[in-house]
C-alpha cells in the first residue's frame, strides 16, 4: 500500500482523528488516574471542542478521502457531513454534561472510564456513518455505534430493567445488522463494487436484475431503519429508551438518529440518483420506487408513534414513542426527494436537538430528585418547581409543533416542502398526526399545572449550572421560533452533498 494513500487523506478526517485520539486518551487517563475519575468528562469535553472545530472547518470542503485505483473513495467530506457532525457533537456536549449531573451514572462511579470511552466509540462510529461512501465502511460504522450502545444501554447493571433492555437491544440489533449485511452482499454480488459512487455509475449504464436489486435495497434499509427507529423496525426503541440510563436515551434519540438520517440521505442520494432538476427535485433511478416507499413508511411511522404514545405512563417511554413519531415527520422530508425536503430535514434536526435534549434533561433532573419518571407523579410539579415546569412546557409545546416555538418552524418547513411537491394529502395526514400528538404532550402539562400534588410538594432546588444549561436549551427554542432566518441560512448552506 502506498503511504501517500494514507497521508493525503489524513487531513480530511481530522474530526475522526480528534475523536479517536480522545478515546485513546480517555482509556489511558482512566488507567493512570486510578480512582480519581472526575477529570474524565473534562477531557471528553476538550476532545469534543477539538472535534467541533475540525467539523466546522469541513463546511468549506468538498473532497473524497482514501481514493485508490480500486476505489473511488471511502469517506466524503462535504458541508452536509459537517452539519450532521456538528449536530452529533452538539448533542455529545450536552450528554456529557448530563452524565456529570446524573445520579444514575454517578452510582457506577468506578466504571466511568468505560462509560466515556464507549460514548466516544459511539461518536466515532456516527462520524463515519455520516461521511462513509463505501458499503463496507457503512456497515462497520453502524456496528461500531451499535456495539458501543449495547453496552451503554445496560451500563448501570444495578437494575434488572437495564440489563433486559441491553440484551433485547443486542439481539434485535444483531438480527437487523445481519439482514443489512445480507442486503450489502447481494448488492455487491450484482454490481461487483462496494463504493456507492461506482454502484451509481454502474446501475445507470448497465441493466440490473430488478427483483434482486429491490431486495438488496430494502434489506439494506432495514439496518438504517433500525437506527432511525422507523416503523416496522422500531420495536427495540420503547424498551431500550425506557431501560437505558436517561443520558444514553437522550443521546440515542438525538445523535444516533441524526447519524442514521445522514447515512440514509447519503445512501439514497449517491447510489440511486440520476439528476437534480432546476427546482431541486431528485430524479432517481427508477428500479426502486423510493418515493412510494418513504411515503408509506412515514405515514405508518408517525401514526404508530403518535397513537402508541397516547397510552404511555412513563415519561421516557412516552418520549420514545414521540421520537418514533418525529422520525416519521423527518421521513416526510425524505419522501419529497428534493433539496427543499433536505432543507426541511436539516432545520428539523437543529430544532429537534434543542427540544429533545431539553425534555430529557428536565426528566432527568426530576428523576434525580423524586426518583420517578411516571407522568402521574408529576402532578402539581409546576407549582412547586415553576422554572422546571415552564421549561418542560416550552419543550413539549415545541415538540407538538405549536408557535411561537422552534418546533413549529421545523414542522412548517416540512409542510412547505410537501405542499411545494403537491403532496397535499400527505401534509394533511401529518397535520392530523400533530393534533393527536397534542394530546399526550399536553397531558403532561396538565399534570404539571392543572392538578394539585397528591402527596406533598417537591422541595428541591435547581442548581445554578443546571438552570443555566436549561436556559441554554429553552431560550433558543423560543428565539428560533420567532427569528429563524439563521436556521434557514445554515440549512441552505448544508445541503451540498459531494458529487451532485
Amino acid at each position, binding site marked *: 500500500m502506498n503511504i501517500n494513500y494514507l497521508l493525503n487523506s489524513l487531513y480530511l478526517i481530522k474530526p475522526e482523528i480528534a475523536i479517536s485520539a480522545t478515546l485513546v486518551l480517555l482509556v489511558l487517563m482512566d488507567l493512570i488516574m486510578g480512582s480519581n475519575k472526575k477529570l474524565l468528562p473534562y477531557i471528553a469535553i476538550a476532545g469534543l471542542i477539538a472535534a467541533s472545530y475540525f467539523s466546522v472547518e469541513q463546511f468549506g470542503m468538498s473532497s473524497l478521502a482514501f481514493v485508490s485505483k480500486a476505489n473511488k473513495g471511502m469517506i466524503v467530506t462535504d458541508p452536509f457531513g459537517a452539519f450532521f457532525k456538528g449536530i452529533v457533537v452538539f448533542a455529545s456536549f450536552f450528554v456529557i454534561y448530563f452524565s456529570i449531573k446524573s445520579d444514575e451514572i454517578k452510582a457506577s462511579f468506578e466504571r466511568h472510564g468505560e462509560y466515556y470511552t464507549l460514548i466516544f466509540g459511539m461518536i466515532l462510529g456516527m462520524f463515519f456513518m455520516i461521511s462513509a461512501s463505501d458499503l463496507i465502511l457503512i456497515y462497520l460504522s453502524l456496528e461500531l455505534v451499535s456495539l458501543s450502545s449495547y453496552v451503554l444501554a445496560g451500563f448501570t447493571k444495578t437494575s434488572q430493567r437495564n440489563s433486559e433492555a441491553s*440484551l*433485547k437491544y443486542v*439481539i*434485535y440489533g444483531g*438480527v*437487523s445488522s445481519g*439482514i443489512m449485511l445480507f442486503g450489502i452482499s447481494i448488492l455487491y454480488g450484482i454490481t461487483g463494487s462496494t463504493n456507492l459512487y461506482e454502484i451509481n455509475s454502474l446501475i445507470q449504464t448497465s441493466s440490473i436484475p430488478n*427483483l434482486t436489486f*429491490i*431486495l438488496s435495497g*430494502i*434489506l439494506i434499509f*432495514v439496518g438504517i431503519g433500525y437506527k432511525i427507529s422507523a416503523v*416496522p*423496525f422500531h*420495536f*427495540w426503541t*420503547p*424498551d431500550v429508551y425506557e431501560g437505558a440510563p436517561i443520558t444514553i436515551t437522550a443521546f440515542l434519540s438525538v445523535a444516533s438518529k441524526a447519524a442514521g438520517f445522514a447515512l440514509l440521505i447519503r445512501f439514497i442520494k449517491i447510489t440511486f440518483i440520476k439528476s437534480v432538476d432546476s427546482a431541486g427535485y431528485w430524479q432517481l433511478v427508477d428500479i*426502486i*420506487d423510493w418515493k*412510494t*416507499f418513504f411515503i*408509506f413508511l412515514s405515514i405508518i411511522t408517525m401514526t*404508530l408513534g403518535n*397513537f*402508541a*404514545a*397516547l*397510552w404511555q405512563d412513563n415519561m421516557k417511554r412516552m418520549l420514545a414513542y414521540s421520537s418514533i413519531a418525529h422520525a416519521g415527520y423527518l421521513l416526510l422530508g425524505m419522501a419529497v426527494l428534493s433539496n427543499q425536503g433536505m432543507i426541511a430535514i436539516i432545520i428539523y434536526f437543529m430544532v429537534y436537538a434543542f427540544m429533545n435534549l431539553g425534555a430529557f434533561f428536565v426528566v432527568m433532573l426530576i428523576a434525580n430528585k423524586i426518583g420517578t419518571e411516571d407522568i402521574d407523579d408529576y402532578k402539581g410539579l409546576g407549582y412547586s418547581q415553576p422554572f422546571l415546569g415552564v421549561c418542560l412546557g416550552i419543550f413539549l409545546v415545541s415538540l407538538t409543533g405549536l408557535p411561537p416555538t422552534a418546533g413549529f418552524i421545523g414542522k412548517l418547513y416540512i409542510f*412547505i416542502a410537501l*405542499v*411545494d411537491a*403537491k403532496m397535499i394529502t400527505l401534509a394533511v395526514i401529518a397535520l392530523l398526526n400533530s393534533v*393527536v400528538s397534542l*394530546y399526550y404532550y399536553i397531558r403532561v402539562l396538565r399534570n404539571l399545572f392543572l392538578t394539585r400534588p397528591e402527596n406533598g410538594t417537591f422541595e428541591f432546588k435547581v442548581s445554578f449550572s443546571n438552570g443555566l444549561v436549561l436556559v441554554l436549551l429553552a431560550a433558543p427554542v423560543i428565539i428560533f421560533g420567532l*427569528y*429563524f*432566518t439563521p436556521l*434557514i441560512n445554515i440549512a441552505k448552506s448544508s445541503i451540498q452533498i459531494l458529487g451532485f
Partner: protein
Amino acid sequence: MTEFNLIQIAIAILFLPLVGFAFVLFLGKKIKSAYLVEVGILILTFLLTAVLLFNKLYWFADKNIVSEFSWISYKNIAVFGNISIDLGFLLDNLSVIMIFTVALISMLVHIFSIAYMAGDKLYNRYFAYLGLFTFSMSGIVLTHNILMMYVFWELVGISSYLLIGFWYEKKSAPDAGKKAFLVNRIGDIGMFSGIMMLFNTYHTFTFEKIFAQMASGTLPFNSEFWLTVTGLLLFCGAIGKSAQFPLHVWLPDAMEGPTPVSALIHAATMVAAGVFLVCRIFPMLTGDALFIIAVIGALSALIPATIALTQNDIKKVLAYSTVSQLGYMVMALGVGAYKFAFFHLITHAFFKACLFLGSGSVIHAMHHEQDITKMGGLKKKLPLTYATFLIASLALSGIPLTSGFLSKDGILQGTFAFGSLTGYWLFPAVGFVVAMLTAFYMFRLIILTFHGEPKNKEKYDHAHESPFVMAMPLVVLSALSIFIWYTPNPINADAGLFLGKWIKTPSLSVPQNARYSFMKTDLVPEGKAENNRDISNEVKKEGTAEGKEVIYSEAYTEAMHHAHYPAMFLSLFVALTGIVFAFVFYYWKKISADKLARDIKPFYKLSFNKWYFDEIYNATFVTFTMLSSRVLAWFDNTIVDGIVNGAATVTRMISFFTGRFDNIVVDGLVNLMAYLSGFIGLVLRRFQTGRVQTYIVLVVFSLVIILYLFKTF
C-alpha cells in the same frame, strides 16, 4: 456619528424601557425602590433620543435611514406565492421628532408620578406599566413596516387598558379600561383588514416598498376605488386610537386612570398615534379618502368642543378638548395640510400634557377633588401651577407668541385654502367655530378653577403647591409651549427649521386622477419656480428643478399664501372672542350677574345696551350651545352607545347558539375522535409485547410484506 450609530441608538431607545418593565415587574415586589430604575432608564432613554434627534436633523436631515432584516423569507411557495417579511427601523425626520416627544413627555410623566402616585400600594407595578407603554409607543414610531406597527399598536392598547384600570378596586376604572379596549378593537379590525389588503396586493408590509409599487401603478384589485377603501380601512385604526367620531366615546371614560397616565397616553402620545398613522400612510390616500377623513376630523373637532363647554370635571373638559384637537389634526390631514397637522400634533402634545399634569397638580392639592364648581381661587395657593396652566391654555386657545397659535393658524390656513380651491367652505367654518369654543371653555376652566372665591373652604385651606418633582415637568412643558422652539418669527411658522426644513409633505403614490385636483402634478417651469416666492414651502424645490413631480399645484401654493393673513387674523379674533366670552360669563358675572338683572330689571333694560348683550347671548348662544351640547351628549350616550350595545346583544345571542352547537355537535365529534384515537393506540400497543422474539418475527414478517408490495408497485 454614522447612520449605523443612529440605528444602534434607536435599538437602545426601543428596548431600554422594555428592560425597565421586566425589571420592575419581576423584582418590584422584592425591591421597594425598583421604580427608580425605571425612572433612571427613562431619563437615559430621553438623553438618547435627544442625541438621536440632534444627529439625525443636523447630519442627515434629508435622508431616511432604514435598517431592516429579513424575518421570514420563503420566496415563492407553490400555493401562497411570495411570502417574505422584513422587520426594521425607519428613521426619518417624522419619526425622530415624534420619538423625542414621546420620550420627553414619558420621562416627565415618570418624574411627576414619583410624587403623584406616592403611597399607592401598586406603586412599582405602575412604573412597570409605564415602561411597557413607552416601549410599545416607541415601536409604533420607529418601525418601517405596517405589520410591526400593528403589533405595537395592540401593545399600546394593552398598556392603555392596564393603566386605565389601574385602580381596579373602584368599579368604574376597570369598566373604563374595558370600554377603551373594546372600542379600539372596532377600529383595529378595520385596520387589520386594510393591512391584509395591502399584503395581498404588494406582498410586503414595508411602507416604502408599498408606496414604490403603488407609484408604478399596482393597485389593490387594480382599481382606485379599492385603493380608497384600503386607505379608509387603515384609517379605521386611527379612528379608534385617536378617538375620532364616532368612536370617541372611550376617551372621556379613560380619565378614570391616574392623571399622569391621562397626560402621557390619553393626551400627548398614544391618542396621537392615529394621527401619526395617517401621516405615515398619507402618500397612499386618494382624494376621496382624504375628503372622508376631513369630514370625520371636522365632526370630531366640533362635537367634543361643544360638549366640553358644559363639563364640570376638570379632566373631562381636557379629555373632550383632546378629542377636538385630534379632530383638528385629522381634518388638517384630510384637507392636505400635512405639515401643519404634524406640527399641531407635536405642539399639542406638549401643551396638553402640561394641562393634564397641571390638572393633576390641582387634583393633588385639592385631595382628589375634580369638580371645578367646587374649586376657585386657587391662583394664590398654586401660583406655579396657575402660571404654567395659563401658558398652556393660551397655547391651546391659539394666542400669539405660543406654539399653539402657529400650528392652529397653519391648520386654519390649510382649511381656508382648501375652501377657496374646492368651495367647501364648511371646513374653515368648523375650524374657526372650534377655535372659538376652545378658547371659551379653556378660560371658563381657568376662571372657575383658579379665580374667584374658593367654594370649598376646607379643601382650599389645605391646598398646597406641589413638590419640585411635580412642578419641574410643568415648567418644562409650558416652556415648550412658547413659539421660540419652532420658529424665530412668532407669526410665521414656515420661517423656522421645523416646517421649513425638517418636515416635508411626502410625495404621493396615488394615481393622478384619484387625487385632489390641487395635488395633481403640474410641471412648473424652472424659471417660474425661482421667481415664485417661497412662502409656503409646499413645493418641493429639488423636485421642481429636475422637472419631476410636485406635490401641490401652483394654485394651492397661491391659495395658501393668500389664506395666511386672513386666517391668522380671523383665528386670533375668534380666540380672543372666546376668551372674552369666558370672562364675561364667569369672571365678571358679579358685576353683571343675572341676580342683578332680576333685581333692577327696568334699569337693566334701559341703561346700557351692553346688558342686552348678556340677555341675548344667554337666550340664544348659551342656551343654544348648552342645548346642542346636551343633544350631542345625548346623541353620544343614547345613539352611539346604543348602537354599540345593540351590536353586543346580537353578538351574545349568536354566540349562545354557536355555543350550543359547539357543545353538542362539535364536542361530540371531537370526543368520538378522541375515543377512536385512544382505541387505535390500545390496539397498536399490543404489538409491543416486550418479548424480543416477537419483535424479530414481526420485523421479518413486515419485511416480507414490504417486498411483496414493492413488486406490485
